[in-house]
């Protein structure tokens, strides 16, 4: 069974707007990661947040983690057409396995 579940499944916004994606998970974690996948390509790591962290920034990305609610959010500010991709959250517990959610498909209209 999948650990992470993203919401929404799909999101369409205009260029310049902010995009927010959410992820919920079921069990305790060591860290939560977000990955991006362009159509027909492999996944690329975006950002990692550890279980003892609440917020993390990287460029136009902002990730929050609420371990009491077992949820995380990824905010992409000032989105660009090039941000069009699928975004996945992934969780790790014991350091060996990383389990992925079903992903959010983001479409940014120019």
């Amino acid at each position, binding site marked *: *069974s*999948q650990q*992470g579940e993203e919401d929404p*499944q799909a999101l369409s916004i205009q260029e310049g707007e902010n995009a927010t994606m959410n992820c919920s998970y079921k069990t305790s974690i*060591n*860290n939560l*990661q977000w*990955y991006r996948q362009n159509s*027909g*390509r*492999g*996944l*690329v*790591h975006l950002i*990692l947040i550890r279980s003892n962290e609440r917020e993390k920034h990287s460029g136009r990305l902002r990730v929050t983690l609420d371990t009491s609610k077992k949820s995380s959010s990824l905010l992409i500010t000032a989105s660009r057409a090039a941000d069009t991709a699928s975004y*996945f959250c*992934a969780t*790790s517990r*014991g*350091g*060996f*396995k*990383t*389990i*992925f*959610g*079903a*992903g959010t498909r983001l479409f940014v209209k120019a």
Partner: protein
Amino acid sequence: NAGVTQTPKFRVLKTGQSMTLLCAQDMNHEYMYWYRQDPGMGLRLIHYSVGEGTTAKGEVPDGYNVSRLKKQNFLLGLESAAPSQTSVYFCASKRPRGVGEKLFFGSGTQLSVL
């Protein structure tokens, strides 16, 4: 530095045929993984390896076998392909826990079983 390389990129099999997918990484990573990606399902872990000569089952291991004879290579085998194994397969690798959690992915193998 090639990173993670998967071969082949595309393959069409008939039901019952066998094949091996090869994953090679040049980053000296200890951990390697095989995932499959199906529409609307995200990535599901098939098998993984935490070092040369070791393998372990993931979420959906049935119908697949793996081997890690060399640290840089991780092979995924289908002994008797079934249409349900039509999918995109991704290999990934990473450094051990405590050093780095980030997964590095190959570009995928699109497999169709007719």
